[in-house]
């Protein structure tokens, strides 16, 4: 008797590649999804196509110049990079930063957190296919961008921090303080309205609940950082340990499920906390100078500095020799979160894989660290 009626199973393993350049991805990265019955069984994320290494370019540059170069690492958290880079020098050279400058730095950092989180929410909504939410969020974000432009003179690279304080351009007068206050009121009202609308939408909730879930144990194993880690229920926020944040009261937000919903809500709920910090900083803004120029350059050993930025823990380290920078290292939070992105894809339906990546708030430009230089006389583009 033949066995034609027997059920034979065949495992079909299909690979679905995305990128390096893909319409669903904002940045150049390659995502390979290994799929079985439309369920992702394994994922591989490749970056490096844009890598040139800003640390290498920083080698041997005068410290002030190298610090301003760090701002070019990322277009979203440019202030975080220059702030941390200045903190390294200030630690090594034992420079006291005036309290007013510390407060202005905090205001800039929290404004940056606001625009980064709003960008995340807008991009997340776009990936969800909800363009109305996305456009509304970009519209709300515009207020923060304008405040940053007002203080720093630029919308992307504000150059607020310098060694010993902040640039004179960033001094806050009464008019600017009033505009920040009005901006905070507006953002708080609009974000809470958005959150209410977002949570009450059953279509959106069903699309994001339980997708790309990461457990506490997995987050620890994968060295996850920032809001992505807090979305799993682990209460770790470096701002709690930073002396710059000591005068301010704020809550560390956590969620329990570690899925897309938890990650989106994390950012929504962190926005009022940032607004709270900005309001406190404005209310108690100390009087006095904003730059300490009475310091001397000297050689230092290797100095390390960690700060909490919108995506997690940012690490800058270098030493100073003859006023020049040596042995520089920058570690962005996205690099430690990339393994989490791969892991979050596994087990999801193929249509949710991109959402699982986006939930970790990736910034591949900051991870690859490429900058574009335009040589003016010849108009030649050079990526370094």
């Amino acid at each position: 008797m033949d066995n034609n009626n027997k059920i034979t199973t065949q495992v079909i393993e299909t690979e679905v590649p995305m990128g390096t350049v893909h319409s669903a991805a904002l940045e150049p990265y390659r995502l390979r999804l290994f799929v079985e019955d439309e369920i992702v069984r394994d994922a591989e994320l490749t970056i490096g196509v844009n890598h040139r290494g800003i640390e290498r370019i920083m080698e041997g540059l005068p410290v002030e110049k190298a610090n301003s170069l760090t701002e070019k690492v990322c277009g979203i958290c440019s202030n975080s990079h220059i702030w941390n880079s200045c903190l390294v020098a200030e630690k090594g050279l034992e420079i006291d930063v005036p309290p007013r400058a510390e407060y202005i730095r905090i205001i800039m950092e929290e404004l940056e957190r606001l625009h980064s989180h709003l960008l995340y929410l807008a991009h997340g909504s776009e990936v969800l296919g909800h363009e109305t939410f996305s456009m509304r969020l970009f519209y709300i974000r515009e207020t923060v961008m304008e405040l940053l432009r007002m203080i720093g003179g630029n919308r992307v690279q504000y150059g607020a921090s310098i060694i010993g304080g902040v640039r004179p351009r960033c001094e806050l007068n009464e008019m600017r303080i009033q505009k920040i206050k009005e901006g905070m009121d507006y953002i708080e009202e609009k974000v809470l309205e958005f959150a209410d609308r977002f949570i009450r939408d059953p279509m959106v909730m069903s699309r994001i609940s339980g997708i790309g879930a990461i457990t506490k144990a997995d987050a620890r194993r994968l060295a996850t950082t920032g809001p992505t880690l807090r979305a799993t229920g682990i209460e770790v926020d470096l701002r709690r340990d930073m002396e710059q944040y000591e005068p301010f009261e704020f809550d560390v937000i956590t969620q329990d499920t570690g899925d897309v919903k938890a990650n989106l809500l994390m950012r929504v709920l962190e926005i009022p906390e940032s607004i709270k910090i900005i309001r406190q900083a404005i209310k108690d803004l100390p009087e006095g100078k904003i730059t300490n120029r009475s310091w001397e350059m000297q050689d230092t050993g290797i100095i390390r500095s960690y700060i909490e930025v919108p995506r997690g823990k940012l690490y800058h380290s270098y030493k100073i020799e003859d006023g020049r920078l040596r042995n520089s290292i920058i570690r962005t939070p996205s690099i430690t979160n990339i393994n989490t992105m791969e892991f979050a894809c596994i087990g999801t339906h193929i249509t949710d894989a991109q959402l699982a990546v986006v939930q970790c708030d990736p910034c591949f430009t900051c991870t690859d660290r490429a900058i574009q230089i335009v040589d003016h006389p010849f108009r030649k583009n050079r990526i370094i």
Partner: protein
Amino acid sequence: MKFVVRPLHIISVGGYIVEVDFPYRNIIVVNPTQEPIKIDLPVFTTDWIDKQRKLGLEIIPTKDEDSFLSTFRKAKAKLEKLKAE
């Protein structure tokens, strides 16, 4: 995560080290072959070095007290020589 090291190319992966219990400050990675090679990142343990060497890459770890710049320049000069051949 994978990272592409282009053929006859040199990079340093210091920013990709998660420095929990890792003795080196920076790692210079040289691809002396004519093929792009994918490496695993981030770096968590010293086993990573042997694993990547097996792929045909030249791995030069540097410590806090080493001069990163001179080590990088030496490796780069060696690579340039190889490129010229």
